[in-house]
């Protein structure tokens, strides 16, 4: 009886792992293709995915293909600014929302969900319309500024989503203690409350950057005056058939860098935890 159960359990476990492996591989097919293509000398050939030998040339194309190079720079420029601004904006907005009374809080929570629940295409068109209205005042708004505005708009709610729950868990007495010890309210906020939120803030920034660098639809509607981003480069160059394999190289590189960054952060935080545990 026991052995039969063991066998059954063993088969079930194998099936579970098999199922998981299939699902994971479904998601990894494009990742593998991107990395494979980034080293493939035949990445641009007409017969898809045929191996033309190993090369570093695609990585060089990142810098030599002007269109690709500009779109990478534009992407990084918008995403880094959008991440920085929306993290700070989202942090202070969270502190403000946390202080609201119940009724105002509910209204704010609802408003904050709109950018997340609205479809990307409508968000993109909305920001484009706002920028069109502002165009008489700021003739050069389309391009960097419109895209930055749009990216901040959709990133802030996610920063709040990460920071607000942590803020709710912080001990209010810490804040009061700092004031009893002679800190001004602002100083206690800056020196006590905000440092206690570091992990949540970093997570929020990472989510904002991930969303921003990957965005296609919203940037599609807010690009202009020769300013575009990487996703839109891929889309338009692929439809115009002048796609450079350097795009694979850039993306593979970005994935490796992000992975390294996340591993460092998680290692650092677990190191901190063990250090704390020792104390």
């Amino acid at each position: 009886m026991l052995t039969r159960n063991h066998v059954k359990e063993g088969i079930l476990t194998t099936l579970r792992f098999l199922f998981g492996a299939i699902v994971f591989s479904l998601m990894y097919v494009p990742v593998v293709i991107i990395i494979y293509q980034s080293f493939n000398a035949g990445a641009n050939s007409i017969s898809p995915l045929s191996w033309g030998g190993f090369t570093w040339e695609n990585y060089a194309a990142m810098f030599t293909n002007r269109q690709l190079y500009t779109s990478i720079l534009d992407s990084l420029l918008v995403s880094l600014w959008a991440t920085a601004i929306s993290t700070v904006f989202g942090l202070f907005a969270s502190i403000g929302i946390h202080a609201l009374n119940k009724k105002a809080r509910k209204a704010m929570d609802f408003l904050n969900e709109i950018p997340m629940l609205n479809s990307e295409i409508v968000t993109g068109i909305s920001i484009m319309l706002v920028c069109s209205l502002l165009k008489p005042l700021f003739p050069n708004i389309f391009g960097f500024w419109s895209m930055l505005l749009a990216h901040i708009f959709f990133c802030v709610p996610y920063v709040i989503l990460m920071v607000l729950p942590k803020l709710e868990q912080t001990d209010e007495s810490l804040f009061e203690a700092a004031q009893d010890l002679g800190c001004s309210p602002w100083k206690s906020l800056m020196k006590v409350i905000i440092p206690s939120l570091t992990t949540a803030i970093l997570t929020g920034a990472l989510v904002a950057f991930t969303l921003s660098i990957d965005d296609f639809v919203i940037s599609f509607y807010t690009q202009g005056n020769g300013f575009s981003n990487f996703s839109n480069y891929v889309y338009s160059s692929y439809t115009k058939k002048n796609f450079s394999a350097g795009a694979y190289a850039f993306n593979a590189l970005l994935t490796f860098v992000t992975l390294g960054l996340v591993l460092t952060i998680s290692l650092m935080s677990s190191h901190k935890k063990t250090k704390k545990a020792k104390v």
Partner: protein
Amino acid sequence: MKRFKGLAVPYFVWLILLVVVPTITMIVLTFLQSNGTNLDGAYWSLDSYRRLADPSILKALWNSLVIAFWTVLFCFLLGYPVAYFLSFSTHIKNKQLFLLLLILPMWCNSMLRIVSWLRFFSTDWLSPLNLVGTNGAVIFVTVTTYLPFMVFPIFTVLEKMDRSLIEASSDLGVPAWKTFLKITFPLSLEGVSSGVIMVFLPAATGFAISETIGQGKVRLMGNLIQAVFEKNNYNFGSLLSLLTSIVILLLVGAVAGIREMHKRRKVHHVNA
């Protein structure tokens, strides 16, 4: 920390400006015939509303809902077991690592992932299947793109679940499948509904996947809106955008409403 209430004000103003102003602009535009947002020579007209009668619009709306429905269903069928095995497995020591593995593909550019699938479907051994340009291929690529959005909320809810309930049920001799149906699954519905919303939204309104994988043969709401704006027809485009938002908000509201009702019934149950 009540004194920092004022910090919510800039964000409130920001949201009003970037949500309310464009919505009003769109509503006004639907009643006009104009050249983009340029009002020189614009006149009041109900032409946009008349164009709604065009059957291709209803068809695109229906197509979007059908494609999103299948995407959500497949994401659920693939994502729920993965979240469940990951959460309940006694073999996996490092769950964080598996979560990381699940997010990793999302750091690859989504547009480039779509292009990669397109190349993959066009290889010598897959091209005889003629996948490119079919609804099935569009659904398949959409599922692989948004699957993590289904797995994460379900996993989070399962992790928070009180395991003693399940132990109690098995101690009372209830078979495992019945425990799952009566306890685990109902308690995880909150995560499922979040996942459903998070997958449904981009699946129903996107246009990148249907444009590239569908090769123009799969026309969804997003493709229609994009085509109309490309022709600089902001009037009809605004109307279609508002229509999409209304349909989406109604559906999301329905899911949220069901969830709320479910929650209330649960509370009632406990009180009784």
